[in-house]
């Protein structure tokens, strides 16, 4: 927490680049969410196809 209070020394930086800073954090956080979520779901489905999909293949 003390480290977080240090933002006080960055008033100028935040005034100048605050929006860009928050936008970068926002975008990259959603990129990571999307990559991890899609990749894991895709790999797990490929490895163990859900019941319904296997049944369909047999019939």
């Amino acid at each position, binding site marked *: *927490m003390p480290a977080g209070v240090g*933002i006080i020394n960055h008033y100028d930086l935040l005034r100048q680049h605050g929006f860009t800073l928050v936008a970068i954090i926002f975008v990259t956080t959603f990129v990571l*969410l999307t990559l991890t979520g899609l990749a894991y779901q895709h790999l797990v489905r490929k490895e163990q196809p859900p019941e319904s999909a296997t049944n369909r293949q047999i019939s």
Partner: protein
Amino acid sequence: MTELSLSDIAASLVMVLFTLIIYQAFAWLQKKFNQAWLNPMLLAIAVIIPLMLYLEISFEHYYSATLPLSQLLEPAVVALGFPLYQHLKTIRQQAKFIIPILALGTMIVILLSFAMTVFLIAIPEIAVSLSLKSVTTPIGIALTEQLKGDTSITAFAIILAGLFGGLLGPSWLHFIGVDSPKAQSLAIGAASHALGTASVSKISHQHAAYSSLALILSAVLTAILSPSLIIMLTNFLTNI
């Protein structure tokens, strides 16, 4: 001389106690109302900053007075070993999926955050800080110090990443078709560390387990991969 150091110790004690009380009060509020946005760290910082400005205490004074609190971050890193041990069975079973995904995701986002910050803000220390924002606070701060980033920007970015993923992550993942609870919690743990984990843990035990698994593994992977990656990026920049 003795009088001066005595008053220093007293001031230090007051600031440490005050910081702890404010944090605990907000932590209690969050527990009571169960809302992710009532983040105790963010709210406590929002109370302390105006107070310091009003009392004309400089950040350097506050930081050195509360140094014992900052030093507690180191044992907090070691404490992460315990949940890692708890999840050992799941990790062994799923390592071939989870570790490559998290390693790749972590590296891509470090590169992306660094590149975006360099192009848009053009301050290397800030680029280092934003690259390390997806991990839990103790690891993020420790790595920032090591890689010459700015620890207060890292702390700020870590809270925001946690809030974005914790509050909006579940609906965003649904929206893009990631419906499996394991995939959702893994993604939120990787992008939004302890804050995201806390907010999905309310859904089920499985959510809690996968999210904290992702939080720990991404922290370890970031600690291993980020130093060489960021040093490489910084060298690349200085050579242009």
